[in-house]
């Protein structure tokens, strides 16, 4: 079974802190994605990567950066966390053109 894991289910950080969210997949997928999900706004794509060291901005990249040094791992970085980044963060992975699998999500609260 495909497994996408995320480093934390719940995270509480303070404004201005640097935050790392980690995602690991075990199916050798080329594509990995970071979404955030907010009530009334749905799922929005932050960044995605289609290969190691490759990244592309999604719909809402501002305030975020990503890193993909190894194929199985895709990190989302909040350089200086702000309260409007309080959200559910979902990682997903897929082969190109094939169904994607989501991780369990990280609920981040920024105080």
């Amino acid at each position, binding site marked *: 079974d495909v497994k996408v894991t995320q480093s934390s289910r719940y995270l509480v950080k303070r404004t201005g802190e640097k935050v790392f969210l980690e995602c690991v997949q075990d199916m050798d997928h*080329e594509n990995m994605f970071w979404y955030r999900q907010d009530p*009334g706004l749905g799922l929005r794509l932050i960044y*995605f990567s289609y290969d190691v060291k490759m990244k592309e901005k999604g719909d809402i990249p501002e305030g975020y950066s990503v890193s993909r040094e190894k194929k199985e791992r895709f990190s989302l970085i909040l350089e200086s966390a702000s309260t409007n980044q309080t959200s559910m963060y979902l990682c997903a992975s897929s082969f190109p053109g094939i169904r994607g699998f989501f991780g369990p999500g990280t609920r981040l609260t920024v105080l």
Partner: protein
Amino acid sequence: QKEVEQNSGPLSVPEGAIASLNCTYSDRGSQSFFWYRQYSGKSPELIMFIYSNGDKEDGRFTAQLNKASQYVSLLIRDSQPSDSATYLCAVRGAFLYSGGGADGLTFGKGTHLIIQP
């Protein structure tokens, strides 16, 4: 900007009836269409996908696609209380990013379905 529209609901359906969930999309070049189910506090899980016009059936679920009308729907027959969830419609377009192949989905905001016992 690609858009995927869904009625947010809640859509309330009696147990045993057919639940009908609808989705429209703006990008006429869209190639494939997905329905995800998301229980409260959980991540989305794929339940159906469809690429061609017409119907696709899988157990109690039927996905229907009409590319001319830019419309995709999900029917759930013999609805059960366990079907109560938010259903997300997602669309994959025909775009290619540099390097090719990456294919993020555009999601609708979801329809909250309640099956009443």
